[in-house]
Protein backbone atom coordinates (compact mmCIF):
# COMPACT_ATOMS: atom_id res chain seq x y z
CA UNK A 1 0.00 0.00 0.00
CA UNK A 2 1.63 3.18 -1.16
CA UNK A 3 1.32 6.51 0.61
CA UNK A 4 1.58 8.44 -2.65
CA UNK A 5 -2.15 8.51 -3.52
CA UNK A 6 -2.91 10.02 -0.12
CA UNK A 7 -0.23 12.68 -0.56
CA UNK A 8 -1.58 13.45 -4.04
CA UNK A 9 -5.12 13.89 -2.79
CA UNK A 10 -4.05 15.95 0.21
CA UNK A 11 -1.88 18.16 -1.96
CA UNK A 12 -4.69 18.68 -4.49
CA UNK A 13 -7.17 19.69 -1.80
CA UNK A 14 -4.59 22.08 -0.32
CA UNK A 15 -3.79 23.74 -3.66
CA UNK A 16 -7.45 24.28 -4.47
CA UNK A 17 -8.20 25.60 -0.95
CA UNK A 18 -5.31 28.04 -0.94
CA UNK A 19 -6.20 29.17 -4.49
CA UNK A 20 -9.75 29.84 -3.34
CA UNK A 21 -8.44 31.90 -0.43
CA UNK A 22 -6.42 34.13 -2.80
CA UNK A 23 -9.75 35.00 -4.44
CA UNK A 24 -11.95 35.31 -1.36
CA UNK A 25 -9.61 37.02 1.15
CA UNK A 26 -10.73 40.49 2.19
CA UNK A 27 -7.37 42.26 2.25
CA UNK A 28 -4.85 42.60 -0.53
CA UNK A 29 -1.87 41.59 1.63
CA UNK A 30 -3.61 38.42 2.82
CA UNK A 31 -4.49 37.57 -0.78
CA UNK A 32 -0.90 38.06 -1.95
CA UNK A 33 0.43 35.95 0.94
CA UNK A 34 -2.03 33.23 -0.05
CA UNK A 35 -0.81 33.50 -3.63
CA UNK A 36 2.81 32.99 -2.59
CA UNK A 37 1.83 29.96 -0.48
CA UNK A 38 -0.18 28.69 -3.44
CA UNK A 39 2.86 28.97 -5.72
CA UNK A 40 4.95 26.96 -3.25
CA UNK A 41 2.35 24.20 -3.08
CA UNK A 42 1.99 24.21 -6.85
CA UNK A 43 5.75 23.58 -7.10
CA UNK A 44 5.14 20.28 -5.28
CA UNK A 45 2.45 19.34 -7.80
CA UNK A 46 4.98 19.98 -10.57
CA UNK A 47 7.48 17.71 -8.86
CA UNK A 48 4.82 14.99 -8.72
CA UNK A 49 4.46 15.49 -12.51
CA UNK A 50 8.21 14.82 -12.93
CA UNK A 51 8.90 18.46 -13.76
CA UNK A 52 11.50 19.82 -11.31
CA UNK A 53 12.52 22.45 -13.90
CA UNK A 54 9.00 23.83 -13.94
CA UNK A 55 8.77 23.51 -10.15
CA UNK A 56 11.82 25.71 -9.69
CA UNK A 57 10.55 28.26 -12.23
CA UNK A 58 7.14 28.34 -10.58
CA UNK A 59 8.63 28.75 -7.09
CA UNK A 60 11.04 31.47 -8.23
CA UNK A 61 9.07 33.53 -10.76
CA UNK A 62 5.46 32.44 -10.41
CA UNK A 63 5.45 32.65 -6.63
CA UNK A 64 8.43 34.60 -5.29
CA UNK A 65 9.04 37.41 -7.78
CA UNK A 66 5.36 37.87 -8.69
CA UNK A 67 4.47 38.08 -4.98
CA UNK A 68 7.14 40.75 -4.47
CA UNK A 69 5.88 42.63 -7.55
CA UNK A 70 2.34 42.73 -6.16
CA UNK A 71 3.46 43.64 -2.62
CA UNK A 72 5.62 46.49 -3.95
CA UNK A 73 2.75 47.70 -6.12
CA UNK A 74 0.27 47.45 -3.24
CA UNK A 75 2.58 49.54 -1.07
CA UNK A 76 2.89 52.25 -3.72
CA UNK A 77 -0.89 52.43 -3.90
CA UNK A 78 -1.05 52.37 -0.10
CA UNK A 79 -3.40 55.35 0.45
CA UNK A 80 -6.07 53.43 -1.43
CA UNK A 81 -5.00 49.86 -0.88
CA UNK A 82 -8.01 48.99 1.25
CA UNK A 83 -10.42 51.30 -0.54
CA UNK A 84 -12.29 50.85 -3.76
CA UNK A 85 -14.48 53.59 -5.10
CA UNK A 86 -16.34 51.04 -7.11
CA UNK A 87 -19.53 49.48 -5.79
CA UNK A 88 -19.18 45.98 -4.39
CA UNK A 89 -20.38 43.44 -6.95
CA UNK A 90 -24.07 42.68 -6.72
CA UNK A 91 -25.46 39.29 -5.82
CA UNK A 92 -26.70 38.82 -9.38
CA UNK A 93 -23.21 39.37 -10.71
CA UNK A 94 -21.76 36.97 -8.16
CA UNK A 95 -24.26 34.25 -9.04
CA UNK A 96 -23.77 34.78 -12.75
CA UNK A 97 -19.97 34.83 -12.46
CA UNK A 98 -20.01 31.78 -10.19
CA UNK A 99 -22.18 29.78 -12.59
CA UNK A 100 -20.10 30.81 -15.58
CA UNK A 101 -16.81 29.95 -13.85
CA UNK A 102 -18.18 26.61 -12.65
CA UNK A 103 -19.35 25.77 -16.18
CA UNK A 104 -15.94 26.56 -17.68
CA UNK A 105 -14.16 24.55 -14.97
CA UNK A 106 -16.49 21.56 -15.48
CA UNK A 107 -16.05 21.66 -19.24
CA UNK A 108 -12.28 21.77 -18.84
CA UNK A 109 -12.36 18.96 -16.27
CA UNK A 110 -14.50 16.82 -18.56
CA UNK A 111 -12.12 17.47 -21.45
CA UNK A 112 -9.22 16.27 -19.29
CA UNK A 113 -11.02 13.08 -18.30
CA UNK A 114 -11.71 12.17 -21.94
CA UNK A 115 -8.17 12.83 -23.21
CA UNK A 116 -7.21 10.14 -25.72
CA UNK A 117 -5.67 6.94 -24.37
CA UNK A 118 -2.87 7.13 -26.90
CA UNK A 119 -1.40 10.48 -25.85
CA UNK A 120 0.21 12.54 -28.60
CA UNK A 121 3.82 13.28 -27.84
CA UNK A 122 6.61 15.30 -29.33
CA UNK A 123 9.14 13.50 -27.15
CA UNK A 124 10.56 11.32 -29.99
CA UNK A 125 11.15 14.39 -32.18
CA UNK A 126 12.64 16.25 -29.24
CA UNK A 127 14.89 13.27 -28.55
CA UNK A 128 16.12 13.37 -32.13
CA UNK A 129 16.70 17.10 -31.86
CA UNK A 130 18.45 16.67 -28.54
CA UNK A 131 20.79 14.03 -29.89
CA UNK A 132 21.35 16.05 -33.06
CA UNK A 133 21.72 19.78 -32.58
CA UNK A 134 21.67 19.68 -28.80
CA UNK A 135 24.30 16.97 -28.61
CA UNK A 136 25.93 16.52 -25.25
CA UNK A 137 23.09 18.00 -23.21
CA UNK A 138 21.81 15.69 -20.50
CA UNK A 139 18.76 17.84 -19.79
CA UNK A 140 16.18 17.38 -22.57
CA UNK A 141 14.35 20.57 -21.54
CA UNK A 142 17.43 22.71 -22.12
CA UNK A 143 17.88 20.98 -25.47
CA UNK A 144 14.29 21.80 -26.40
CA UNK A 145 14.57 25.40 -25.21
CA UNK A 146 17.76 26.18 -27.05
CA UNK A 147 17.67 24.01 -30.11
CA UNK A 148 14.36 22.30 -30.94
CA UNK A 149 12.14 25.30 -30.08
CA UNK A 150 14.83 27.95 -30.27
CA UNK A 151 12.56 30.49 -31.98
CA UNK A 152 10.12 30.39 -29.05
CA UNK A 153 12.88 30.99 -26.56
CA UNK A 154 14.33 33.88 -28.52
CA UNK A 155 10.95 35.55 -29.02
CA UNK A 156 10.21 35.06 -25.33
CA UNK A 157 13.40 36.98 -24.50
CA UNK A 158 12.22 39.73 -26.85
CA UNK A 159 8.85 39.79 -25.08
CA UNK A 160 10.75 40.36 -21.83
CA UNK A 161 12.57 43.35 -23.35
CA UNK A 162 9.33 44.71 -24.81
CA UNK A 163 7.76 44.47 -21.36
CA UNK A 164 10.64 46.45 -19.84
CA UNK A 165 10.27 49.10 -22.56
CA UNK A 166 6.51 49.20 -21.97
CA UNK A 167 6.94 49.62 -18.19
CA UNK A 168 9.46 52.41 -18.71
CA UNK A 169 7.23 54.14 -21.26
CA UNK A 170 4.27 54.12 -18.88
CA UNK A 171 6.14 56.58 -16.66
CA UNK A 172 5.53 60.30 -17.14
CA UNK A 173 7.37 62.13 -19.95
CA UNK A 174 9.50 64.19 -17.59
CA UNK A 175 10.72 61.09 -15.79
CA UNK A 176 12.35 59.46 -18.82
CA UNK A 177 15.94 58.57 -18.08
CA UNK A 178 15.59 58.75 -14.30
CA UNK A 179 15.99 55.82 -11.97
CA UNK A 180 12.89 53.88 -10.77
CA UNK A 181 11.72 54.47 -7.21
CA UNK A 182 13.61 52.57 -4.54
CA UNK A 183 12.12 49.22 -3.59
CA UNK A 184 12.25 50.26 0.07
CA UNK A 185 11.83 53.90 1.05
CA UNK A 186 12.77 53.69 4.73
CA UNK A 187 16.32 53.16 5.93
CA UNK A 188 16.86 49.38 6.21
CA UNK A 189 17.25 47.76 9.62
CA UNK A 190 20.66 46.31 10.53
CA UNK A 191 19.29 42.75 10.37
CA UNK A 192 18.12 43.35 6.82
CA UNK A 193 21.52 44.69 5.78
CA UNK A 194 23.25 41.73 7.44
CA UNK A 195 20.98 39.23 5.73
CA UNK A 196 21.54 40.83 2.33
CA UNK A 197 25.30 41.03 2.85
CA UNK A 198 25.45 37.32 3.70
CA UNK A 199 22.94 36.01 1.19
CA UNK A 200 23.66 38.05 -1.94
CA UNK A 201 27.16 36.62 -2.59
CA UNK A 202 26.10 33.06 -1.71
CA UNK A 203 22.89 33.42 -3.70
CA UNK A 204 24.77 34.70 -6.72
CA UNK A 205 26.95 31.59 -6.63
CA UNK A 206 23.88 29.37 -6.26
CA UNK A 207 22.22 31.10 -9.22
CA UNK A 208 25.29 30.49 -11.37
CA UNK A 209 25.42 26.88 -10.14
CA UNK A 210 21.79 26.26 -11.11
CA UNK A 211 22.39 27.80 -14.53
CA UNK A 212 25.53 25.69 -15.00
CA UNK A 213 24.03 22.33 -14.02
CA UNK A 214 21.05 23.15 -16.26
CA UNK A 215 22.85 21.67 -19.24
CA UNK A 216 22.71 18.18 -17.77
CA UNK A 217 20.25 18.31 -14.88
CA UNK A 218 17.16 20.31 -14.01
CA UNK A 219 17.90 24.02 -13.84
CA UNK A 220 18.98 26.38 -16.56
CA UNK A 221 19.00 29.96 -17.75
CA UNK A 222 15.51 30.87 -16.55
CA UNK A 223 15.86 29.49 -13.05
CA UNK A 224 19.42 30.70 -12.55
CA UNK A 225 18.56 34.12 -13.95
CA UNK A 226 15.53 34.39 -11.67
CA UNK A 227 17.66 33.64 -8.60
CA UNK A 228 20.26 36.23 -9.65
CA UNK A 229 17.43 38.72 -10.17
CA UNK A 230 16.10 37.98 -6.68
CA UNK A 231 19.56 38.61 -5.24
CA UNK A 232 19.84 41.96 -7.03
CA UNK A 233 16.44 42.98 -5.68
CA UNK A 234 17.48 41.91 -2.19
CA UNK A 235 20.57 44.12 -2.45
CA UNK A 236 18.36 47.02 -3.56
CA UNK A 237 15.93 46.49 -0.66
CA UNK A 238 18.81 46.60 1.84
CA UNK A 239 20.14 49.73 0.10
CA UNK A 240 23.41 48.00 -0.69
CA UNK A 241 22.89 49.35 -4.20
CA UNK A 242 20.47 51.76 -5.84
CA UNK A 243 18.19 51.08 -8.79
CA UNK A 244 20.16 52.25 -11.85
CA UNK A 245 19.04 55.11 -14.07
CA UNK A 246 17.19 53.59 -17.01
CA UNK A 247 19.41 55.34 -19.58
CA UNK A 248 22.76 53.94 -18.42
CA UNK A 249 24.52 51.99 -21.12
CA UNK A 250 25.46 48.86 -19.15
CA UNK A 251 21.83 48.24 -18.18
CA UNK A 252 20.61 48.50 -21.76
CA UNK A 253 23.46 46.33 -23.04
CA UNK A 254 22.66 43.69 -20.42
CA UNK A 255 18.99 43.74 -21.42
CA UNK A 256 19.57 43.20 -25.12
CA UNK A 257 22.59 40.89 -24.76
CA UNK A 258 20.54 37.67 -24.55
CA UNK A 259 18.36 38.03 -27.67
CA UNK A 260 21.15 39.76 -29.63
CA UNK A 261 23.62 36.92 -29.10
CA UNK A 262 20.86 34.42 -29.81
CA UNK A 263 20.06 36.16 -33.10
CA UNK A 264 23.72 36.49 -34.14
CA UNK A 265 24.42 32.82 -33.47
CA UNK A 266 21.22 31.91 -35.31
CA UNK A 267 22.24 33.95 -38.36
CA UNK A 268 25.73 32.51 -38.23
CA UNK A 269 24.09 29.09 -38.49
CA UNK A 270 22.81 30.05 -41.94
CA UNK A 271 26.38 30.35 -43.20
CA UNK A 272 28.02 27.63 -41.13
CA UNK A 273 25.48 24.82 -41.28
CA UNK A 274 22.99 25.89 -43.94
CA UNK A 275 19.91 26.87 -41.93
CA UNK A 276 18.82 29.30 -39.24
CA UNK A 277 19.80 28.11 -35.74
CA UNK A 278 21.66 25.11 -37.08
CA UNK A 279 24.84 24.47 -35.14
CA UNK A 280 27.65 22.23 -36.27
CA UNK A 281 27.08 19.19 -33.99
CA UNK A 282 30.62 19.16 -32.66
CA UNK A 283 30.31 22.73 -31.38
CA UNK A 284 26.71 22.44 -30.12
CA UNK A 285 27.37 22.31 -26.40
CA UNK A 286 29.77 25.25 -26.16
CA UNK A 287 27.51 27.33 -28.40
CA UNK A 288 24.45 26.58 -26.30
CA UNK A 289 26.27 27.44 -23.07
CA UNK A 290 27.50 30.66 -24.72
CA UNK A 291 23.96 31.69 -25.65
CA UNK A 292 22.62 30.74 -22.25
CA UNK A 293 25.23 32.85 -20.44
CA UNK A 294 23.91 35.97 -22.12
CA UNK A 295 20.31 34.88 -21.57
CA UNK A 296 21.00 34.62 -17.83
CA UNK A 297 22.40 38.15 -17.92
CA UNK A 298 19.31 39.50 -19.69
CA UNK A 299 16.87 37.74 -17.36
CA UNK A 300 18.76 38.88 -14.26
CA UNK A 301 18.63 42.47 -15.55
CA UNK A 302 15.03 42.44 -16.82
CA UNK A 303 13.14 40.94 -13.86
CA UNK A 304 14.26 43.53 -11.24
CA UNK A 305 13.58 46.36 -13.70
CA UNK A 306 10.05 45.02 -14.19
CA UNK A 307 9.48 44.89 -10.42
CA UNK A 308 11.03 48.35 -9.83
CA UNK A 309 8.52 49.87 -12.22
CA UNK A 310 8.49 53.09 -14.24
CA UNK A 311 11.16 55.75 -13.69
CA UNK A 312 10.60 58.20 -10.88
CA UNK A 313 9.39 61.75 -11.53
CA UNK A 314 11.99 63.49 -9.38
CA UNK A 315 15.56 62.24 -9.62
CA UNK A 316 16.85 60.47 -6.53
CA UNK A 317 19.08 62.96 -4.67
Amino acid sequence: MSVLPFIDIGLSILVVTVAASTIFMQELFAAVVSYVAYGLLLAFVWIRLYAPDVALTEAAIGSGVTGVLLITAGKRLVPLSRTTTEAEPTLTLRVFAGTFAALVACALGAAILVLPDEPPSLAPEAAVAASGAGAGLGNPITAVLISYRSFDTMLEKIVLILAVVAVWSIGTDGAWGNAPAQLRQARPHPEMVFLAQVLVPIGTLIGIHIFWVGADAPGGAFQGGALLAAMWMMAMMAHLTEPPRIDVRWLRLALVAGPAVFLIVGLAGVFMAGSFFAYPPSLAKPIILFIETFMVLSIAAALPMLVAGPPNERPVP
Partner: protein
Amino acid sequence: MTFLVDLFRIVAIVVGTFFFVAGTVGLLRFPDSLTRLHALAKADNIGLGLVVLGLLPLTENVLAAFKVILIWALVLVSGGSTAQLIGRALRSGRR
Protein backbone atom coordinates in the same frame (compact mmCIF):
# COMPACT_ATOMS: atom_id res chain seq x y z
CA MET B 1 27.63 0.07 13.14
CA THR B 2 25.19 0.21 10.24
CA PHE B 3 22.42 -0.47 12.69
CA LEU B 4 23.52 2.48 14.84
CA VAL B 5 23.65 4.80 11.82
CA ASP B 6 20.20 3.66 10.73
CA LEU B 7 18.86 4.18 14.22
CA PHE B 8 20.37 7.68 14.33
CA ARG B 9 18.88 8.49 10.95
CA ILE B 10 15.40 7.35 11.86
CA VAL B 11 15.43 9.06 15.26
CA ALA B 12 16.69 12.35 13.78
CA ILE B 13 14.07 12.43 11.03
CA VAL B 14 11.23 11.44 13.34
CA VAL B 15 12.18 14.06 15.94
CA GLY B 16 12.61 16.67 13.16
CA THR B 17 9.14 15.87 11.87
CA PHE B 18 7.85 16.18 15.42
CA PHE B 19 9.30 19.69 15.61
CA PHE B 20 7.53 20.71 12.41
CA VAL B 21 4.22 19.36 13.70
CA ALA B 22 4.78 21.02 17.07
CA GLY B 23 5.68 24.31 15.37
CA THR B 24 2.43 24.20 13.42
CA VAL B 25 0.43 23.45 16.55
CA GLY B 26 2.21 26.31 18.31
CA LEU B 27 1.51 28.70 15.46
CA LEU B 28 -2.14 27.78 15.58
CA ARG B 29 -2.68 27.48 19.33
CA PHE B 30 -0.32 29.91 21.09
CA PRO B 31 -2.03 32.99 22.51
CA ASP B 32 -0.02 35.92 21.09
CA SER B 33 2.33 36.85 18.28
CA LEU B 34 5.62 36.61 20.19
CA THR B 35 4.96 33.07 21.45
CA ARG B 36 3.92 32.08 17.93
CA LEU B 37 7.18 33.51 16.64
CA HIS B 38 9.01 31.33 19.17
CA ALA B 39 7.21 28.21 17.91
CA LEU B 40 8.03 29.13 14.31
CA ALA B 41 11.73 29.60 15.04
CA LYS B 42 11.97 26.17 16.68
CA ALA B 43 10.43 24.46 13.69
CA ASP B 44 12.65 26.43 11.30
CA ASN B 45 15.97 25.80 12.97
CA ILE B 46 15.74 22.52 14.89
CA GLY B 47 13.15 20.78 12.74
CA LEU B 48 14.98 21.32 9.47
CA GLY B 49 18.34 20.76 11.20
CA LEU B 50 17.34 17.32 12.45
CA VAL B 51 15.93 16.33 9.07
CA VAL B 52 19.21 17.42 7.47
CA LEU B 53 21.23 15.44 10.03
CA GLY B 54 19.07 12.40 9.38
CA LEU B 55 19.64 12.68 5.63
CA LEU B 56 23.41 13.12 5.89
CA PRO B 57 24.18 9.35 6.05
CA LEU B 58 22.25 8.95 2.78
CA THR B 59 24.36 11.42 0.80
CA GLU B 60 26.53 9.80 -1.82
CA ASN B 61 29.46 12.20 -1.91
CA VAL B 62 30.95 15.18 -0.11
CA LEU B 63 29.39 17.64 -2.56
CA ALA B 64 25.86 16.40 -1.90
CA ALA B 65 26.47 16.52 1.86
CA PHE B 66 27.82 20.05 1.51
CA LYS B 67 24.73 21.10 -0.42
CA VAL B 68 22.39 19.71 2.23
CA ILE B 69 24.32 21.49 5.01
CA LEU B 70 24.37 24.71 2.95
CA ILE B 71 20.58 24.60 2.71
CA TRP B 72 20.34 24.31 6.49
CA ALA B 73 22.81 27.18 6.95
CA LEU B 74 20.82 29.39 4.57
CA VAL B 75 17.59 28.71 6.44
CA LEU B 76 19.32 29.32 9.80
CA VAL B 77 20.68 32.71 8.73
CA SER B 78 17.50 33.87 7.03
CA GLY B 79 15.18 32.43 9.69
CA GLY B 80 17.10 34.09 12.51
CA SER B 81 17.25 37.49 10.81
CA THR B 82 13.62 37.30 9.75
CA ALA B 83 12.57 36.48 13.32
CA GLN B 84 14.44 39.62 14.46
CA LEU B 85 12.70 41.70 11.82
CA ILE B 86 9.28 40.29 12.69
CA GLY B 87 9.94 40.94 16.38
CA ARG B 88 10.91 44.51 15.57
CA ALA B 89 7.75 44.99 13.52
CA LEU B 90 5.69 43.60 16.41
CA ARG B 91 7.34 45.91 18.95
CA SER B 92 6.94 49.03 16.84
CA GLY B 93 3.34 48.06 16.18
CA ARG B 94 2.58 47.77 19.90
CA ARG B 95 4.09 51.13 20.74
